[in-house]
């Protein structure tokens, strides 16, 4: 891996082999949109989209777009992006100044593709697509993914592969529900969630750092352990005392006074509960601290080159243990989403694989909080799409919608969506 990076610095643009991956992928998607969406839209259909709903100043704006025309416009836009991708590959252009071409093409193209899909799906339906609730639902669904991805980012940068995000989420959800129900206070539940996650993080650190057990094995086995433990306690203690434990508590929604009145983004971003606001803080803090602070530099040194870190006096294994516990706590906090943030009682295996999607989001986001946030939001959006379309009455095979995040991740790790690089020494024990 390190030799590849070195070579990358030495090779100038004209020496680099042309990569045709991006233009080919974009062409495939453009063709899919042209024939799958635009080609099957009737020329008289109207697509209704409620962009703004019940805003103080704008009221409700319900757009009625002629479906076929908008489809053609969007496909034309996609063709432009695809064309420039071909041109960029042919001339080996990768960036304009500081703006990386690939990521911008991806964002513009992706937006157009999703828009053309949505307009196609709601074309000719009586009801209109609720744009605001589509986005706010997507944000809420991505909360556990974001916390999980943040946990993964912290752990991997310090050199520990955290596959047990799933278990940490589940443990957090369990403890939050139990403490919340017993104390009848959602805040105590919220506070206790990270404790459960931290315990699992500590176990991960014990086996991975202290006993040099393969990190992926520990992670997978810890997930089984937490699943077994929480399901066992659920079937015995919780179901026996339903009077106490089925009483649910829910975090209240906080509407931020002025900000929540902004059209579209106001209700999406600023009419949520405390866990979502904590999520904003976590992402921003981690993005800054990981790459700009002393703590972040030391942490990353342990993951990139532990021997060098040791040489300058950083206690590598202690740093790894502490930050793995921190990562576990972050994921545990995300687990509160399933119970106290949703106002639900605990259920067996209620994290339902979200920990693994969070792992995927972290990889897709290139091991950076910012990128992981975008990827997690994307997954949350895909998740919420079927709810939103179901309201309009569109029957898309939900399995394919649910499959999308996993497919995208496979494409990503196979190198289709830019190249991402994990911390060099992650998963390698440091034996001093």
């Amino acid at each position: 891996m390190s030799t590849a990076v070195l070579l990358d610095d030495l090779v100038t643009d004209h020496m680099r082999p042309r990569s045709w991956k991006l233009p080919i992928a974009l062409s495939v998607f453009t063709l899919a949109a042209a024939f799958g969406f635009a080609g099957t839209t009737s020329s008289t259909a109207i697509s209704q989209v409620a962009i703004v709903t019940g805003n103080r100043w704008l009221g409700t704006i319900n757009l009625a777009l002629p479906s076929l025309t908008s489809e053609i416009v969007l496909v034309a836009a996609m063709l432009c992006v695809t064309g420039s991708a071909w041109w960029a590959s042919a001339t080996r252009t990768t960036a304009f100044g500081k703006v990386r071409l690939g990521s911008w093409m991806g964002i513009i193209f992706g937006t157009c593709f999703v828009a053309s899909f949505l307009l196609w799906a709601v074309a000719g339906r009586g009801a209109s697509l609720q744009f605001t609730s589509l986005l706010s639902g997507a944000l809420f669904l991505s909360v556990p993914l974001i916390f999980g991805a943040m946990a993964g980012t912290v752990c991997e940068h310090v050199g520990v592969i955290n596959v047990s995000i799933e278990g940490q989420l589940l443990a957090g959800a369990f403890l939050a529900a139990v403490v919340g129900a017993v104390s009848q206070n959602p805040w105590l539940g919220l506070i206790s969630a990270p404790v459960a996650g931290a315990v699992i993080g500590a176990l991960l650190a014990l086996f991975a750092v202290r006993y040099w057990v393969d990190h992926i094995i520990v992670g997978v086995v810890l997930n089984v352990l937490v699943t077994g433990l929480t399901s066992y306690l659920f079937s015995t203690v919780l179901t026996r005392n339903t009077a106490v434990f089925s009483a649910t508590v829910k975090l209240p929604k906080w509407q931020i006074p002025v900000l929540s009145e902004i059209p579209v983004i106001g209700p999406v971003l600023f009419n949520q509960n405390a866990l979502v606001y904590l999520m904003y803080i976590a992402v921003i803090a981690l993005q800054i601290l990981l790459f700009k602070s002393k703590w972040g530099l030391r942490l990353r040194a342990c993951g990139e080159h532990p021997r060098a870190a040791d040489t300058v006096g950083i206690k590598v294994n202690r740093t790894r243990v502490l930050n793995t516990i921190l990562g576990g706590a972050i994921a545990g906090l995300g687990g509160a989403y399933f119970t106290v943030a949703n106002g639900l009682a605990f259920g067996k295996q209620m994290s339902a694989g979200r920990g693994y999607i969070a792992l995927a989001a972290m990889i897709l986001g290139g091991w950076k909080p910012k990128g992981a946030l975008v990827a997690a939001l994307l997954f949350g959006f895909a998740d919420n799409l079927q709810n939103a379309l179901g309201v309009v009455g569109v029957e898309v095979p939900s399995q394919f919608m649910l499959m999308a995040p996993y497919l995208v991740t496979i494409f990503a790790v196979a190198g289709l969506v830019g190249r991402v690089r994990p911390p060099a020494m992650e998963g390698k024990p440091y034996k001093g």
Partner: protein
Amino acid sequence: MSDTTQEQSTPRPTWRVMLRSAATSSYLTSFLAIVVALLIGAILIGAADAQVQQTAAYLFAQPSDFFGAVGHAVGGAYSSLFQGAVVNVSTANNAADVIAPITKTIAYSVPLIFAGLALGIGFRAGMFNIGAQGQIILGAVLCGYVGFSWHLPIVIHVIVCLIGAFVGGALWGFIPGILKAKTGANEVIVTIMLNSIAVFLLGWLLTLQAFRKPTSNAPISPTMDPSAQFPHFFGTPIDLGFVLAILAAVGVWWLMERSTLGFRIRAVGENPDAARTAGMNVSMTYVWVMILSGGLAGLAATSQLLSSASQQLNANIASTFGFDAITVALLGRSKPVGTVLAGLLFGGLRAGGYLMQSVTGTPIDIILVVQSVIVLLIAAPPLVRALFRLPDPERRRRATSRAHARSTREEVTA
């Protein structure tokens, strides 16, 4: 871990040496790990028992009540676990009833052995195939489709179903293999993703006309043809599946220890760079490993579909075999014999767990806890040694090498 240094003076096998070698053997570690796991399980069973909780309130006034309750809860649960897994001594009427549990254990162990062998091949090539779950599902899809929609003569049908299961799993294993070979994509991530994709794919297939039982609204397939069924031995639940699993274990042993491909797989697993330098095609080895591994995992599906009458494809066809197989392969240290034994142990825990759940009300989820603790402890032998204050086999060697280094240094300085 083999000791390559030639001992100058071979020590006489005194009782001391024998004791030491026994105390440092990996079998002892495995055994102690199982003991600790069962102890932790016992604590959980006791702690969740209503009677124990009541008596704990007056523990110091009347400790005998408390310990009696603990003994009753734990003893009851573990005795039914044992009787459900090995031999039934309490409610059996005849000899067949007595050994019925062990035959059930064997039946449960078949998918675990297949999938455990599959993952073992991957582990020895240095590949983490977490995707057995998805490979089992794909194997089940193909095996099931062939089983209920093609109507073939009696022996041929079973063979075709077996091929279907292997091909389905191999296909799902081929994807991460080729992606790793061609793009360097991490197989752990790809297989985890493919697991979920397989679940949704199966869910979607079961909505199709071709996979739907005509008379039912539930997402289940038509039942398998009677011709697509393993023959049973002597009216027990043991059938051809177990024999095939043992044959597969022998086959894997031959492949890994005696064949060129196996040598290549082991070499790549030990050190891919060295293997590449020696002229081996590392990328193709990854692809072959994943095809074989996926195919074997796919065969695990046959025990679900071909083992008993009126089986049908449903959303839960793979249960959690793919994930349990990870623990099986780890416990068996990726070796065929170990995997078969580990598969039998976990099959027994499963079989006994069901009886325990129905008799004493102890939820079967406790088995997951016991399994994961076993694997965690086996993966960390130093922890087990620390728990039981056993000697460290490495320490002696390290001490001698240190002494050797010191004497060399003294020679140099002299």
